[in-house]
């Protein structure tokens, strides 16, 4: 395996919540617990999970937008946490982000052209004329008509806004783009356009990508590798085809079972998610998934399962799957 472009090792992230000042002890919300992720150059990692499982927090940590409580993010050999603010700012040229809400991620008082120019102004030494030319070329490469460049975000449609966001992200020619639910706020027909545009850009520029989504079919379409998250932990990871074809963790099986199917198999033919995601403020002991797991036994109530060593680069954090594997061996 090649040297990873970005690797996050043992990331813990927790936030204080509730009463502060004289209001008794603060509780901590553990958004991420011991998360490891790596992305190789040119690779797309799909991050999947329900709302509130820590996907977006992981994105913010990977981007150096918030320092993790524990663990470190290493981008191309550099530890982001150890970097002084100015150097971190300069390094941002190499990793960019696309947000979920296309309109809200653009400054309402800046035109499309100004938004796209933002990273060029901040991170490159280009002259104004060069920046203008680049903005035009970028707009063309994301399929945004040049007559739209003097529009404000509220004068653009959602899809057009997301094209602006995408142009802004690729403007400084980064090596990595973190896309946090980039299409989930768009209409289905626009989703496909934007997804294909992202794939095309990725192929053209040789980008690595972290693609976050709760929509499995979207992830299956774009990702090389997949990591499934549940309550702040990665419960299964592996090559996308392998994970979708032979999901091992009961949670992954449930997620895949819940994807709407054009011709649904008969009732009971596939496991469906039951219950709600438990509160991350008060996660269940042992395996966090045991409260919803059809296979849970006593061991799952006590012991936190670890991600198993690789079997064909496919890792699972589940006691029952581990038992099956040893029995089979």
């Amino acid at each position, binding site marked *: 395996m090649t040297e990873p472009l970005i690797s996050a090792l043992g990331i813990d992230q927790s936030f204080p919540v509730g009463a502060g000042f004289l209001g008794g002890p603060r509780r901590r919300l553990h958004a991420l617990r011991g998360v490891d992720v790596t992305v190789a150059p040119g690779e797309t990692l799909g991050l999947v999970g329900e709302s509130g499982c820590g996907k977006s927090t992981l994105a*913010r940590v990977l*981007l150096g*937008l918030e320092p993790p409580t524990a663990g470190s993010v290493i981008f191309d050999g550099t530890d982001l946490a150890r970097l002084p603010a100015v150097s971190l*700012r*300069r390094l*941002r*040229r190499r990793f*960019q*982000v696309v*947000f*979920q*809400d296309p309109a*809200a*991620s*653009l*400054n*309402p*008082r*800046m*035109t499309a*052209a*100004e938004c796209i*120019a*933002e*990273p060029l102004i*901040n*991170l490159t030494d280009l002259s*104004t*004329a*060069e920046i*203008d*030319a*680049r*903005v*035009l*070329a*970028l*707009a*063309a*490469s994301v399929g945004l008509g*040049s*007559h*739209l*460049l*003097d*529009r*404000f975000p*509220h*004068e*653009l*449609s959602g899809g*057009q806004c997301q094209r602006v*966001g995408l142009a*802004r992200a690729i403007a*400084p*020619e980064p090596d990595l783009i973190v896309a946090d639910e980039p299409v989930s706020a768009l209409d289905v027909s626009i989703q496909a356009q934007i997804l294909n545009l992202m794939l095309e850009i990725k192929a053209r*520029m040789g980008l690595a990508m972290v693609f976050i989504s709760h929509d499995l079919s979207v992830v299956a379409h774009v990702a090389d590798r997949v990591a499934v998250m549940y309550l702040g932990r990665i419960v299964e990871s592996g090559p996308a085809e392998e994970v979708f074809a032979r999901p091992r963790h009961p949670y992954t099986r449930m997620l895949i079972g819940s994807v709407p199917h054009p011709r649904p198999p008969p009732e009971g033919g596939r496991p469906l998610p039951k219950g709600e995601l438990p509160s991350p403020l008060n996660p269940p002991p042992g395996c966090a998934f045991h409260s919803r797991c059809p296979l849970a036994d006593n061991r799952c109530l006590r012991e936190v399962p670890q991600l198993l060593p690789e079997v064909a680069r496919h890792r699972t954090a589940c006691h029952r799957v581990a038992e099956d594997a040893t029995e089979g061996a």
Partner: protein
Amino acid sequence: MAAPNSPPQTVAAARTRRRPFLESLAHLRRDPTTVVSAAILVLFILIAIFAPLIAGDPTALNPIRRLGPPAPDAWLGTDQLGRDVYARAVYGTRVSLIVGGAVAVLAAIPGVAIGIYASMNRVGGAIVMRLVDALMAIPAVLLAIALAALLKPGLPTLIIAISIPEIPRMVRLVRSVALSVTAQPYVTAAIAAGSSRSRLVFRHILPNTLAPVIVQATYAAASAIIASAILSFLGVGTSPEVPSWGGMMADARGFFRFNPELMFYPGLLLSVLLLVTNILGDRLSDALDPRKVTQKMP
């Protein structure tokens, strides 16, 4: 990446820097309420500037004609010292406009600076906000009276005394708005796009914070005009011979049963000025939000 060889007229599109505020002002010219209010405010300003041309001496005493009826040389009659009420009302515009304008500016500038600082700095912000809370616990007019008594009486003292209690209100407003702007995805996007701290403040946070500041500043101007009237009324504002609306109303109090018009004229002017100030502030804040005014549809 595609080669940047585009025709020159499209390069111009990329360079266009639209000025949302100017576009909105142009739009506001079509709103009759705004136009009338602005015209009235301009009229007040002209009256203040050209007072010597349109009115006689506001301080000349004429003891023989005390509380006199309207006359050719005193259109609105005379007060208890025989001074021309019309001239005093005209000159009183000066004090009101100067106090209102100066207080709006003197409250807004430090208020915005401190508010933005408090929103960006956790520890420093907490300390500043506790000081602001403490200052807010003191009634504004009381604080102004104390300051006016401490400093040399006069217009500058009056302005400072009224501005200081306005600052905490501005700080709280700016901090809360700036905090909510900072939480917006576009600010996170600006950080991810490598914006420096100063660019973040001046390009992204401040412009999106200004709309409520403008409204608050016009309210500060309006309440400063009232406060100056109250302070003059209480006798700690400008000295009695300087014509001011508040002073005129204070003087008229003693004769209210027989000559109520002495209180009516400055009161009417004060009400009209406050009304147009508030209306203009409201419309200006709308003009500062490009979403509300400019419309180019996709």
